[in-house]
């Protein structure tokens, strides 16, 4: 094995083979994150079900019953839960990626491994949480279905894995950007919870995309790549919503641009980030 260490390696070169070499570490990090969180908790992994459940109940009361925001005819609970589950995945991956360098600086200061492993592990860890939440969603979906809700599932339901995958890539892309920026500006770490909360309200989680009609606002809404993911997932399961194909294409465009640029900037900055941390 021959390793060459040189100054100013080209910024576009990401050593994927090396990441593959460290796959065992990737899976151990995933295992660590999945097991360590639940130690010394009574409810353990149940927390990952309780959290979206409570959020959905709150949304149902506030936005459904009090504010009476329409939900495209989808039962309130299913409407909010579907959005919350997907949003939680996106936010989980984003937060994991955003903290990957600064939060682990004590380890990264002492040992080298491909740093991209940390945000990648976030995609997988949060996928496990998503799977748990998805079971919860299916439970409520069928409950409402058999109680006579007029769901019209269609072929878009088959696109769900693609939508979830896109959601993970998106979270990764934004997470990489934020982690690179937090090296220089720690403020971002404090602002992040606030930003993600605002972002959530800019995504059709508590309101349907059909409610946004002004062209400019519509463009802004669909420029947020999460909009397409949420709307199309809902459409696949219930036949309701705004399956805007142009919007979907746009969301893939944004996702890929953010992901590729995020990978590149992360790759460039991670090489010397311990100098400025």
């Amino acid at each position, binding site marked *: *094995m*021959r*390793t*060459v*260490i*040189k*100054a*100013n*390696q080209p910024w576009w070169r990401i050593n994927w083979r090396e990441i593959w070499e*460290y796959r*065992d*570490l990737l899976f*151990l*990090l995933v295992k*660590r994150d999945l*097991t*360590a969180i639940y*130690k*010394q908790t009574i409810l353990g992994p149940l927390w990952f079900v309780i959290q979206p459940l409570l959020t959905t109940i709150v949304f149902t009361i506030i936005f459904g019953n009090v504010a009476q925001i329409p939900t495209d005819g989808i039962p309130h609970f299913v409407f909010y839960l579907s959005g919350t589950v997907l949003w939680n995945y996106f936010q989980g991956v984003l937060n994991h990626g955003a903290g990957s360098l600064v939060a682990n600086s004590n*380890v*990264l*200061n*002492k*040992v*080298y*491994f491909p740093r991209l492993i940390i945000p990648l592990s976030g995609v997988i860890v949060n996928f496990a949480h998503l799977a748990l939440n998805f079971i919860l969603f299916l439970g409520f979906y069928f409950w409402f279905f058999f109680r006579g809700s007029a769901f019209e599932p269609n072929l878009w339901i088959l696109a769900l894995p693609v939508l979830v995958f896109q959601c993970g890539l998106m979270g990764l892309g934004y997470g990489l950007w934020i982690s690179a920026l937090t090296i220089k*500006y*720690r*403020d971002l770490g404090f602002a992040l919870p606030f930003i993600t909360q605002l972002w959530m309200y800019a995504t059709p989680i508590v309101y349907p995309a059909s409610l946004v009609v002004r062209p400019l606002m519509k463009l802004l809404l669909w420029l947020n790549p999460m909009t397409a993911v949420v709307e199309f997932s809902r459409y696949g399961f219930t036949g309701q919503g705004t399956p805007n194909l142009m919007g979907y294409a746009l969301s893939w465009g944004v996702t890929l641009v953010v992901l590729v640029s995020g990978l590149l900037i992360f790759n460039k900055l991670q*090489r*010397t980030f*311990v*100098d*400025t941390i």
Partner: protein
Amino acid sequence: MTTPAISVRNLSKCYKLGTIGRHTLVDECQYLWHKLRGKDPRAHFSKIGHTATEARRVEAEQEGNQKFWALRDVSFDVQPGEVVGIIGRNGAGKSTLLKLLTRITEPTSGEVVINGRVASLLEVGTGFHPELTGRENVYMNGAILGMKKKEIQAQFDRIVAFSEIEKFMDTPVKRYSSGMYVRLAFAVAAHLDPEILLVDEVLAVGDASFQKKCLGKMGDVAKTGRTVFFVSHNMMAINHLCQRSLLIDHGTLALDDEASSVVKVYMKSSASRTMNRDLTGLTLDRTGSGFARLESAALLTLSGEPFSALQMGDGLRIRVGIRAKGNASDISIGISIYNLHGFRICGFQSATTSGKTLVLEEGQLTSVDCIIPEMNLISGSYTVNINLIRMAGTREMTDMVRHALAFEVIPRDVYGTGQLPTGDAVYFPVLWEQEGNRLL
């Protein structure tokens, strides 16, 4: 000629100054604000760094430099199977060199070519998670250090046996004592099995017997034909383990020779520098509130003369200059003597050994002598830490300088038998009687 295991060519690492200490936009704005008002913005950020390198960066910045070369134009080759020791003062660039070789950060210029599988050990227990069990952490730590899961599985029983804590493998490591923690961590590290091992000072952990075991393991690794690159302050370990040694000074390679002769040169240069020191501008290895500060420290003979080396049993006079920012009558001066392993052999506070504290007047330099009539130290090298503490109230540490002084003790026939006392740190005057009759 074989391909070198490590080949370093013109390796340099430069830090742009002004990049540390400002981590938030607020800091950035304050920095600009100070600049706009014509004040020296650096004064605002002159806090002492956490690491030796950072402290040197701060020093360089205070001197008004734009750049700081932590390492400059270093070139050398290490052949397969060589055990090379790296020595140098704190902040000389040893750790920077190791960080470049381990790819933790990237060089500014130059090139390193490494042939073989590398494992690095800059710290034991990197990535240990307190909530995970010993078993889980062995896997985690092994993987972080670059082992495959299969390799860890194959080595697992040996790792556990080496750590000597079989019973606690399924206990979360947060319940471990620090000794157990270190044992397990070192056990993983010792079974890395790479072709090239880069090690930084990790032996300064654990109790004496465990340290011995670790040194032994290092020796074993070296004997099996692996390449070892070893950074240490422990001259004994360097002498014992390495054939060759590199001396790094101010970021450059000062000397590359047989280990024993490099150690000698280093000890000599550090002795002349550490017998009589001006401490006013020192930021390295220093902590404390700064209310009263040490300004100078010198080692003298009992009669107050400078000397080059002490003989066993000689007395010592440690002369310290102190200046305080205000009047105080509760300052106690503390002196501790350490051996090269970093063991604290003894320490004394003026408040406890004399029952009195120092009276200081604002801004007045005062000289205090600590007189040790007889020191029963075994021959070897020793360092001195000095601190100042306010005894009243919260016992505020006003200044503390690590490695303020260093001196050497050379052997003397203290028992008059031609035999030297054995032991690790001190000897005692002894008498023997048989049936009530004095021997000798």
